[in-house]
């Protein structure tokens, strides 16, 4: 009888371990920060790229129905590919304001980038040392965050915005 208890414990342990491993295999191992969806963006103050006197904070964003916060840089090649979608969004939609945050870039290069490709942003801020990006849970650029007027993150796009992401943004703001 006692040996049966031992066998039972060993058997239960093997079954338990198999369940843990099986469930572990089903977990998505690709890291992303999409868990930020539903959370509120924190306090921040963002200076304008060409002037330290002009800045926006979360109070300004509360006035917009939707805001798309886009991290970009002139040295970032994927930022060029997503730029046409940002321009399209800015030209066709009045429901959304786009805030660009220029990440670890030189002012002159950022301005040249916007002059060359067009400026889709209602406000262009600067994040010279990258500290602001941490407040938004950014770990690579381009990344974009769609927030509502309560500053709740409703979508996070890691990587460049493509046609699919563009359509999803339109769907969310309509």
């Amino acid at each position, binding site marked *: 009888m*006692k*040996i049966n*208890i*031992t066998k039972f*414990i*060993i058997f239960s*342990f093997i079954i338990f371990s198999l369940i*843990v491993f099986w469930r572990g295999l089903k977990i998505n191992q690709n*890291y992303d*920060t999409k*868990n*930020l969806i539903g*959370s509120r963006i924190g306090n921040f103050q963002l200076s304008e790229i060409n002037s330290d006197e002009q800045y926006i904070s979360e109070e300004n964003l509360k006035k917009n129905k939707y805001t798309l916060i886009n991290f970009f840089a002139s040295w970032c090649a994927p930022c060029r590919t997503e730029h046409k979608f940002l321009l399209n969004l800015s030209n066709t939609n009045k429901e959304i304001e786009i805030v660009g945050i220029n990440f*670890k870039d030189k002012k002159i290069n950022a301005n040249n980038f916007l002059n060359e490709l067009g400026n889709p942003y209602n406000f262009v801020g600067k994040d010279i*040392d*990258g*500290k602001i*990006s*941490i*407040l*938004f*849970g950014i*770990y*690579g650029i381009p990344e974009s965050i769609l927030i509502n007027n309560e500053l709740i993150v409703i979508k996070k796009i890691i990587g460049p915005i493509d046609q699919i992401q563009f359509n999803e943004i339109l769907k969310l703001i309509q």
Partner: protein
Amino acid sequence: MNLKIFFSIIYFLFLGPLYSSEEKIKLLEIYKNLRCLVCQGQSIADSNSDFAATIKLVVQDQVNEGKTKNEIYTFLISKYGEWIVYQPTFSKSNLLLWIMPYFIFIVGGLIIFMIIRKSKRNKAN
């Protein structure tokens, strides 16, 4: 007056660096417990990536503001999820992770105890 200058020099020469090295140790401890999200198996302490450099700046700022280690970890977890820290926090979702070693230890001990007792009985018989 001369005494004041003497003590000031002593402070800056010996106690100043001592304080900063304590700060450095604290910073290093925090960096070592933070995962570099864009690297292959490296901590923030080991990595020279752009992301690691930014995280180091933010941690330094928060340490200077007088925030505790746990406050810094909580802030970073709120931005990047629990994956950013190597040492997981105690929560409902990872309760099993914390309890399992003790569970295995107790159950394993119980099995060994039963096997020994059985073999002793067999010998006695």
